[in-house]
């Protein structure tokens, strides 16, 4: 740049002004509440009056709280339906649509498929919850279909039975999540040089081989982003549980977010709820940092 160093530094300084509105907003809406929540987690507070400092007592209680540990285990189970299954289906489906359907049947059809699979993704989760709650209710469609095809003994009280509640919520989550993975992966595929596929085909590589030797390696950044975002979303899972099962029956679908909400607004143990939220926050940040480092390293090797 032709501008002298001093002027350039001055020149750059002017840009800080553009950060002011964002900085004020972020401080008020995210940073201060975050810090406040952190402090509240060391207090006993009913939401009114002055919080009473109790040190680490909330955290000590958490360690012995079965409801909390149950919620953590359920989160691990929800990672299967939030991340693992949708990513796997998404990669295969994106590859089929991009590398096969599009070639054989044209771009229009492939776009139509993509749009159709994406539809559940833009539905409000609460609406999806009403819909699936209706399908999975004891007299709902799921059981009627099972009876119609002669599998009556398999009919269950899907969301009202402690054994089936978590898999039922998971089913709805997979239904929602596949579209997100598919769309991101297809966007990623569109930047792959088509000649790469053509060359592989000429070399006799089949679809399956191309999936593993071209598609998945080339999609690594997208798979990374989707895994990151869905894992974090799994840690914060709230609406599907709130709407379908309200964490029941008998805590079978209790997740940390619901437990936090429950302590904030039902038991009014705000400090205790804050402590759960802090644990969630730390886990999320930990996960985010691991991924950010991974991403930075990837950029270096590129």
């Amino acid at each position, binding site marked *: 740049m032709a501008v002298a160093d001093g002027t350039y530094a001055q020149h750059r300084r002017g840009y800080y002004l*553009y950060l002011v*509105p*964002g900085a004020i907003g972020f401080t008020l809406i995210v940073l201060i509440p975050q810090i406040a929540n952190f402090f509240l987690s060391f207090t006993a507070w009913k939401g009114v009056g002055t919080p009473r400092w109790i040190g680490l007592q909330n955290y000590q209680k958490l360690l012995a709280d079965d409801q909390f540990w149950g919620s953590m285990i359920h989160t691990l189970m929800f990672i299967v339906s939030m991340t693992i299954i949708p990513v796997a289906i998404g990669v295969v489906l994106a590859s089929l649509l991009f590398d096969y359907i599009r070639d054989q*049947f044209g771009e229009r059809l492939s776009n139509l498929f993509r749009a159709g*699979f994406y539809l559940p993704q833009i*539905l409000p989760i609460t609406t999806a919850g009403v819909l699936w709650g*209706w399908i999975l*209710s004891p007299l709902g469609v799921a059981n009627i279909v099972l009876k119609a095809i002669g599998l009556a003994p398999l009919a269950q009280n899907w969301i009202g039975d402690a054994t089936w509640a978590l898999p039922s919520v998971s089913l709805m989550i997979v239904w929602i999540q596949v579209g997100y993975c598919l769309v991101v992966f297809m966007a990623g595929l569109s930047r792959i040089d088509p000649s790469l596929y053509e060359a592989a085909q000429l070399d006799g590589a089949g679809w399956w081989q191309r999936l593993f030797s071209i598609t998945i390696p080339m999609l690594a950044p997208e798979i990374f982003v989707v895994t990151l975002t869905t894992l974090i979303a799994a840690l914060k899972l709230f609406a599907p549980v709130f709407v379908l099962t309200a964490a029941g029956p008998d805590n079978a679908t209790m997740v940390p977010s619901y437990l936090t909400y429950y302590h904030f607004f039902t038991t009014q143990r705000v400090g205790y709820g804050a402590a759960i939220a802090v644990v969630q926050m730390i886990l999320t940040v930990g996960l985010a940092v691991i991924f950010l480092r991974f991403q930075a390293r990837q950029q270096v090797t590129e």
Partner: protein
Amino acid sequence: MADAVLDVADRSVTKSAAAHSRKHRGPGRWFILGLVSLGLLATLFPFFLTIINAIKTSAEYASSGPLALPRGIDMVQLQKYWDLSDFGRKLLNSAIISSCVAVFGVILSTLNAYAIGIGKVKGSRAILVILLLGIMVPQESIVYPLYYMAKAVGIYDTQLAVIIVFSVIQSAFGTYLLSSVLSSFPREIIEAADIDGASRWQVLWYVVVPVLRPTLMVIGTFFFIWTWNEFLIPLVLLVSNNNQTVSLAMGLTRGQNLSDPVLQAAASLLGIAPTIIFFLIFQRTLTRGVAVGSVK
């Protein structure tokens, strides 16, 4: 099962490669098409069920069940849920909140991203990391203080509170996306404008924003839909019926004891309808939009 299917694809494609052509006409391709179509049908089946049942009468539902096609269109249950939940009001509330967030969120994102992506201010990377962490941390860890603060400043149970909160939260994501787009913005254009004596504000408004317009539209559309779908913070901040959003009304139906299955189907259809409308309008934007990060 999946393996067998893929093998079919495998062989058929190998053959087509041997023929030095991407096109292939064999039974294998219909098999794959059928399989993907089946997946799509399964995905769309719940929507289909909702539609055919929401327009039945309760008596018809009771006699022929949820899988039978409706004999006619009966709007009674739709009307009933509409009135029961004051749905028109909910739609209006959601539209106001989401539109405001889309506009303010995009403005905030653009300003931030201009400083970070074009201005390359010191600490840009640190700012981005903080923003990213800010949106990644669970809303649970800010929701109680926000609830308390909103009460303290007298905007609890107002749409303004929700608009402010989401404009900031969404803009953190928007900043992240736009900064990476802007960091690869051609320097020559900015420098040329500089030499012509354009101020920073003029460069932003007359050079950067027009080029970015398609990306900003995509981001705004996403902000709109994300905000429309938000649940926890509206649940906590909006208590009175008159201020609630569609998403919130849906989330609270479980408490409302909709014992009639047709009424439940009607409720879901009303919840789905706005989404379908956005989808038809913004389909291309939405399905393409996730690629905004890779726009050059």
